[in-house]
C-alpha cells in the first residue's frame, strides 16, 4: 500500500470516534436517500398503476369538445358506443377497450348527501380493460337493472352495505334532475382511494337511459399492448376512427391527468431536496472533521511542509482521508440501503402511518412498495464522494497554508 494511503488510513483510525461519526452521517444520508427515493418512485409507480388500472386506462377517447370540459363531467358531447367500440378494438396495438359514461351525482343517505361520480360500465368489457371487477365484494350490477356497486370507503362512511337501497340524484342530458333508486350489489375496494371514496358504478345501459343518453359513452378507455408507445397508439387510433368516419379525440393518460403528472414532477423536485439535505449534512460533517483534524495536526502539517511537501500535496492528503471516509460510507450506505430496500421492495411500507386517511393527492392507499433504481445508487455514491471531497477542501487548504515556521515553534 502506498505510504500516503497508509498515512491517510492511520489518521482516520487515530480519530476513530470522529471518523465513525462522519462516516455514519454520510452513510446514513446515503441509506436515507436510497430509501426515500425508492419509496417515492414506488409511490409514483403505484399512483400511475392505480390511475391506469382503475380510472383512466392508457388512452381516453372522447367526443370532440369533451376534453376541455372534462372537469365538469358533462354528458355532452358523447360517443356512440356501438359504432365506436369495435372500431377501437380493431386497431393494432389496442389490447382492450371499454365504454364508460361518467356523470357527477349526489348520493343521499338520510339527511346527508355526498358528491359522487357515477360511472356507467359494461361489466364484460370493463373487466378486460380496467381492474375494478377484480376488487368487488359482492357482485357487479346487471345490465338494465337498478343496481350499483359503490366505493368501499364511501359505503363505510355512509354505513351502507350490500343489499341496501340508495338514492342518487344527477342531471339528465337536458338538465332535469334525475333521481335513481338503486340497490347496492357490491362494494369496490381497490388500491385506488379515489375510486373507493367517490365512485358509484351502474350498468351503462341503465345509466344511459336514466340520463337520456342511451347508447352513449363520455369516454372509451383503451389499454395498450405491451411495449406500445402511447402517443403513437393514440395517433393510430385517432386516424383509424377518422377513416371510419367518426369524429373523436384520443388522449394519453398523461394528457388527461396533468395534475398527477405535475405532482410527480414536484416529487422529483422534492427528491432533489432530499439529496441537497443529505449533501448538506455530509458537507457539515466532513468539513467539521477536517477542520478539527487540521487543527490537531498543525505541527504535523508544519513538519510535512518542512520535509518539502507542497501545500497542494497536503491538501491532497486531507482529501484522500475525506474520500476514504466517503468510500467507506458509500460502501456501507450501499450495503445497508440495499438490504433495507430489498425489504421495502418485498414487504413495502404502510403509508397510512404517515398520512392516515389524508388525501395527499396520490391515488394510492395502504402499502407502498419500493423499487430498484440503480441510478439512485450511482447518484447517491457520487454525491457522497463529491461532498466529502468538497467539504474537506477548504479546511485542508487553510491548514496547508499555515506558516510552517510558526507551527513548528516549540
Amino acid at each position: 500500500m502506498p505510504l500516503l494511503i497508509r498515512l491517510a488510513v492511520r489518521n482516520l483510525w487515530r480519530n476513530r470516534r470522529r471518523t465513525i461519526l462522519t462516516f455514519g452521517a454520510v452513510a446514513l444520508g446515503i441509506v436515507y436517500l436510497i430509501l426515500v427515493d425508492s419509496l417515492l418512485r414506488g409511490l409514483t409507480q403505484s399512483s400511475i398503476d392505480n390511475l391506469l388500472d382503475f380510472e383512466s386506462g392508457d388512452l381516453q377517447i372522447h367526443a370532440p369538445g369533451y376534453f376541455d370540459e372534462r372537469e365538469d363531467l358533462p354528458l355532452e358531447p358523447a360517443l356512440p358506443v356501438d359504432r365506436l367500440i369495435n372500431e377501437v378494438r380493431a386497431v393494432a396495438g389496442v389490447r382492450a377497450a371499454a365504454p364508460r359514461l361518467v356523470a357527477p351525482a349526489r348520493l343521499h343517505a338520510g339527511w346527508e348527501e355526498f358528491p359522487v361520480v357515477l360511472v356507467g360500465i359494461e361489466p364484460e368489457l370493463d373487466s378486460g380493460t380496467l381492474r375494478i371487477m377484480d376488487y368487488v365484494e359482492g357482485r357487479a350490477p346487471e345490465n338494465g337493472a337498478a343496481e350499483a356497486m359503490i366505493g368501499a370507503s364511501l359505503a363505510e362512511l355512509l354505513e351502507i352495505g350490500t343489499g341496501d337501497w340508495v338514492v342518487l340524484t344527477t342531471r339528465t342530458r337536458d338538465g332535469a334532475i334525475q333521481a335513481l333508486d338503486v340497490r347496492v350489489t357490491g362494494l369496490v375496494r381497490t388500491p385506488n382511494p379515489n375510486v373507493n371514496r367517490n365512485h358509484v358504478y351502474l350498468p351503462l345501459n341503465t345509466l344511459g337511459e336514466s340520463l337520456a343518453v342511451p347508447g352513449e359513452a363520455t369516454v372509451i378507455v383503451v389499454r395498450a399492448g405491451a411495449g406500445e408507445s402511447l402517443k403513437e397508439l393514440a395517433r393510430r387510433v385517432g386516424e383509424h376512427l377518422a377513416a371510419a368516419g367518426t369524429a373523436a379525440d384520443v388522449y394519453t393518460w398523461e394528457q388527461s391527468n396533468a395534475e398527477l403528472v405535475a405532482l410527480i414532477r414536484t416529487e422529483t423536485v422534492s427528491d432533489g431536496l432530499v439529496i441537497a439535505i443529505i449533501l448538506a449534512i455530509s458537507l457539515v460533517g466532513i468539513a467539521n472533521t477536517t477542520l478539527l483534524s487540521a487543527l490537531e495536526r498543525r505541527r504535523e502539517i508544519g513538519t510535512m511542509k518542512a520535509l518539502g511537501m507542497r501545500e497542494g500535496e497536503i491538501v491532497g492528503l486531507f482529501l484522500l482521508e475525506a474520500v476514504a471516509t466517503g468510500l467507506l460510507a458509500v460502501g456501507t450506505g450501499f450495503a445497508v440501503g440495499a438490504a433495507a430496500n430489498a425489504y421495502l421492495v418485498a414487504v413495502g411500507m404502510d403509508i397510512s402511518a404517515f398520512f392516515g386517511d389524508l388525501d395527499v393527492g396520490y391515488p394510492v392507499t395502504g402499502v407502498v412498495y419500493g423499487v430498484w433504481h440503480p441510478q439512485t445508487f450511482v447518484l447517491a455514491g457520487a454525491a457522497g464522494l463529491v461532498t466529502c471531497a468538497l467539504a474537506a477542501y477548504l479546511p485542508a487548504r487553510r491548514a496547508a497554508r499555515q506558516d510552517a515556521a510558526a507551527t513548528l515553534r516549540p
Partner: protein
Amino acid sequence: MALVELEGVSKTYRQGKLEVPALRGVDLEIEAGEFTAIVGPSGSGKTTLLNLIGCLDVPTAGIVRLAGRELSRLDRNALADIRREKIGFIFQSFNLIPVLTAKENVEFALALLRRNGAGQVHGEQVTELLAEVGLAGLENRRPGELSGGQQQRVAIARALVKAPAIVLADEPTANLDSENGRAILELMRAMNERRGTTFVFSTHDPMVMEYSRRIVTLQDGRVVADERREPDAAPHPARCS
C-alpha cells in the same frame, strides 16, 4: 561559492501593532561540510536564522542564497521543492509523524523525493540507515513507543536519508538528557565526518558547542562573534551498531 550566503539579512515580525526585529542585518557564509553552531540567548534570532536558511521563512530585507540560488525570488512551491531535495530538519521536539513507524517516517521523506524522480535511496537502505543511527530492530515501532533519544535518531535518519546539502537542527538536544544529547551530537558529527553533510545547529547547550568547529554568536539579531576552532576530541565515538 559558499553553500549558504546571507547578505544584510533582516527579519521583522509583526505582533499586532508592534514590530519585533528578530534579525538586524546579518551577513554570514557557511561552506559545504561545516559543522556550525549558532549560539546566543533566547530571542537572539537563532531560530529565525535557521528558518531563513531552511526556506521556511523569507527575510524582510537582504539576500539569502542556498547553493547559489536566491531564495527570496522563489514561490512557495519552489521553496518546498528546495526543502524536499536539499534540506534536512531536526527539531527540538523531534516532530515525527505519530501514526507512522520509525521506518515509515524515514521512508516518508524518501517517498516525497521519489515522486519527483529525484530519489536515489532504496527501501533496504532505509533499514541500513536506521541501523547506522543505532535503531536496528526498532524500525517498526511508532514514535510513541520510542524514547526521546530514539525519536531524535529517527529524525536524524529522516533528515539524512535524502542526502541533503544541509541539515538544520534547532536545539536538537534541548529535550534530551545529557547522555542522550551527547550520543545524538556524536552521531551527527559522525555523519558529518563520514558523509560530508553540512550541519548547522542552534543551541545554548554548552555541550553542543564542544562538538562544533565553528560557533556563530547572535545577540539582539546581530552576529557578535564568529569563531572557528578545532572541536574538542570527542570522548566517545558515535555509537553505531
